[in-house]
């Protein structure tokens, strides 16, 4: 075996020198087909979008916390969206809310999160040279880039960006004459999202193909890290649900621009009847939420997968219930497709149908609870190392639980009739989806920064960033539950002119806004830490967290092809931490059982015989050699 390894390593080097053609700057950094570069492109784009998206939320929180506040100082940025009296234009308020939702859900937590970490980790953790198709992968990023450019430019047009909410319900979104936010901005939104969907499909198809076909020798499905399981299931969810959104958007485009009546019926504008008859706006909601609900799990599952990995590594314990974790992710993924109508309890749905969807919805609490318990039992009596990534992962568990609880409340159709479209819903999904996934993203950056850039991030700043963000998020979203229970509807410009909201909760709303500004400000610590570590960070060792997964066996700065010689084979699952009898408290996946007789369990000794077989398997290597 050893001679073979050395030989092919020399071969690899010789070949490398043989046709060593340095790639141009453009091919290396811009139109790159290397999964690591594409991952970084997604990460940078995601950070850019999150600054814009969160910044927008601060602006509308100013309006909500301090109604009618003079926002003159924003005029240099927002121009005529600050009206003559110095207030925020109500149309623009709606546009801000819509853009915030779209940007955060799709551009940050879908593209920024999956795009970065699926791309970066799939080949490195399964032992592949790259994605199945580097070209499609590159195409995926550039479709996303184009979608981004169009969405971004829509912010600056005269009538403003789309303003019908991130769910773009017709008829509001189908009739350009309905309001300002339904004019050119809405058209650009649809074009941008169509491109975005293409990008997600190209990316997802690649992820699935890579995970299934390009695993290294010995990497059976029962040895895959939970990160990869999560990315795989996420991609499958996307593959099945994004085309449905495309259908919905397509029909909406025809309604808007060609005069069809899929979603429109008997509408009067200024006393005049429109010609459209026979359409159904509820149809759109069905199509939208058939994507929309899986989408919330597309956002959350990668975060759950990454934090499983981080929590096991930093508790120095095997993940509790590896198979249960996989099963519950599969359960969640399956249920995600049959619960969409819980977003539509108040559309006049047949109450019997409503109770079926209520029942299915509440079942999701079971796999969710399994996951929460497994996290906690993994932490239980672990030898915990509180790295910033670990803190953010624990923060995710906290948000997942507190936000999931309100999901059970909302899942009851009787309660939802009161709570639908109030700030209670806003609190629910910001905790369980927004904050939890954002923490997964941040945990991922802190944990894999050394692998991405070969440098370490500053831990102290990481701790400060964590505590300020963690406290800040609860200060923002916890009070929102009360405001929601009091009946405050979401997407309202101001609450000062309605009897039921006039004189109450004004101070709480101001408090939330202050907390939001506080939390937003704290994120600059992260940005500073990121940039500063990139330039001045300490050089990272090869395996800074003493982790078991394959990416840490690659060089500190992996080149094109990831491993200079042969790709390591895999002999064990990724969670052999603190194994009794073992020399170290971790045994990487590529260490064969024959080398660890002191810690093997009886059935593992039997597996030694299989090692020859694993080694004899073919390399399963797209390029056979790195290039």
């Amino acid at each position, binding site marked *: 075996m050893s001679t*073979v390894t050395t*030989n*092919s390593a020399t*071969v690899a080097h*010789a*070949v490398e020198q*043989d046709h060593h053609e340095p790639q141009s700057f453009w091919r290396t950094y811009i139109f790159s087909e290397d999964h690591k570069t594409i991952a970084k492109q997604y990460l940078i784009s995601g950070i850019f979008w999150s600054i814009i998206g969160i910044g927008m939320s601060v602006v509308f929180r100013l309006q909500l916390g301090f109604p009618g506040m003079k926002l003159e100082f924003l005029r240099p940025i927002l121009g005529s969206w600050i009206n003559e009296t110095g207030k925020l234009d109500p149309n623009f308020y709606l546009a801000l809310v819509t853009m915030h939702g779209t940007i955060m859900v799709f551009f940050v937590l879908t593209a920024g999160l999956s795009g970065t970490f699926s791309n970066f980790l799939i080949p490195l953790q399964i032992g592949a040279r790259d994605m*199945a*198709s580097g070209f*499609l992968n590159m195409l995926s990023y550039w479709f996303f880039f184009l979608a981004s450019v169009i969405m971004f430019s829509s912010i600056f047009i005269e009538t403003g960006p789309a303003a019908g909410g991130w769910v773009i319900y017709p008829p509001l979104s189908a009739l350009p004459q309905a309001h300002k936010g339904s004019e050119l901005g809405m058209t650009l939104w649809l074009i941008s999202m169509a491109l975005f969907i293409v990008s997600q*499909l190209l990316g*997802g*198809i*690649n992820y*699935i*193909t*890579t995970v*299934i*076909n*390009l695993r290294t020798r010995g990497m059976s499905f029962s040895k895959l890290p939970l990160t990869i399981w999560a990315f795989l299931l996420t991609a499958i969810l996307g*593959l*099945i*649900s*994004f*085309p*449905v959104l*495309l*259908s*919905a958007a*397509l*029909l909406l485009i*025809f309604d808007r621009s*060609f*005069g*069809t*009546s*899929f979603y429109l019926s008997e509408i009067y504008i200024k006393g005049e009847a429109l010609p459209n*008859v*026979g*359409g*159904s706006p509820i*149809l759109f909601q*069905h*199509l939208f939420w*058939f994507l929309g609900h899986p989408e919330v799990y597309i956002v959350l599952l990668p975060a759950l997968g990454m934090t499983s990995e981080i929590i096991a590594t930093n508790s120095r314990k095997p993940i509790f219930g590896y198979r249960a974790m996989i099963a519950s992710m599969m359960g969640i993924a399956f249920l995600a497709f049959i619960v969409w109508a819980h977003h539509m309890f108040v559309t006049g749905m047949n109450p019997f149908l409503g109770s079926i969807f209520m029942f299915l919805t509440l079942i999701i609490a079971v796999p969710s609870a399994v996951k929460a318990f497994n996290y906690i039992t993994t932490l239980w009596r672990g030898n915990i190392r509180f790295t910033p990534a670990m803190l953010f992962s624990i923060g995710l568990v906290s948000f997942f639980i507190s936000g999931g609880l309100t999901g059970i409340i909302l899942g009851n159709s009787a309660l939802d009739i009161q709570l639908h479209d109030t700030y209670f819903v806003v609190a629910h999904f910001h905790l369980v989806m927004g904050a939890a996934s954002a923490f997964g993203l941040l945990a991922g950056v802190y944990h894999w920064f050394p692998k991405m850039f070969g440098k370490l991030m500053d831990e102290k700043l990481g701790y400060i960033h964590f505590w300020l963000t963690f406290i800040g998020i609860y200060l923002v979203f916890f009070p929102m539950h009360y405001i929601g229970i009091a009946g405050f509807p979401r997407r309202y410009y101001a609450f000062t002119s309605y009897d039921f909201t006039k004189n109450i909760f004004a101070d709480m709303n101001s408090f939330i806004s202050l907390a939001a500004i506080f939390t937003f400000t704290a994120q600059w610590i992260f940005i500073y830490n990121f940039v500063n570590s990139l330039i001045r960070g300490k050089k990272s060792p090869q395996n800074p967290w003493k982790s078991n997964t394959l990416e840490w066996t690659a060089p500190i700065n992996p080149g094109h092809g990831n491993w200079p010689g042969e790709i390591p084979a895999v002999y064990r699952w990724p969670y052999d931490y603190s194994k009794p009898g073992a020399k170290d408290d971790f045994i990487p996946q590529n260490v064969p059982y024959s080398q660890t007789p002191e810690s093997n369990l009886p059935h593992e000794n039997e597996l030694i015989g299989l090692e020859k077989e694993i080694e*004899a*398997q*073919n*390399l*399963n*290597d*797209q390029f*056979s*050699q790195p290039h």
Partner: protein
Amino acid sequence: MSEVISEISVIEEPQETLSMNPRKFILWLFIVSIIMLFAAMTSAYLVRRAEGNWLEYDIPSIFTYSSVVLVLSSITMHWAYIAAKKDKFGTLKTAITITFVLGVIFLYMQFQGWIDLVNQNVFFVGNPAGSFMYIFTGLHGFHLISGLVVLLVALIACFRLRIHAKSLNQIEIAVAYWHFLDILWLYLFFFLVYFH
């Protein structure tokens, strides 16, 4: 030097046995996404139809004939595949060309179907019953055009002798995609006939 190296690596590194060729796998996933696109459309059709206020009209008979043409093209496509397996390059090129021509004829007949619809006063703009008809045929036609492009690429590959008994991946992908487009149309057609 490099020859020696390639020899060594041939000896030392066993053949790839991927569970499936990644490109074919990508094709199948791509097909899944197309299926979902049309599944969404046809369910939208059913949901909308259940609400009443539905325009009844005759499905142009030319769609029946066009279905026959498309099925024929699937047969000629399969003929191409068999020819490729037996390294009969002349037959291979002829068969792909015939498939391509049949595909174009199919598209033309679909277009003729639209004209028939208009003559029946069923327009794209109007009752969704009619709009859906145009959407189904139009979207399928759009995908069929992409199928024609795939055929063209395969034909060029034939002329460059890239398709032969030992290198069947490309033709297999083209064949699978073409059969899928055929089955997709038959599904849409029977769906429209049945839920009318």
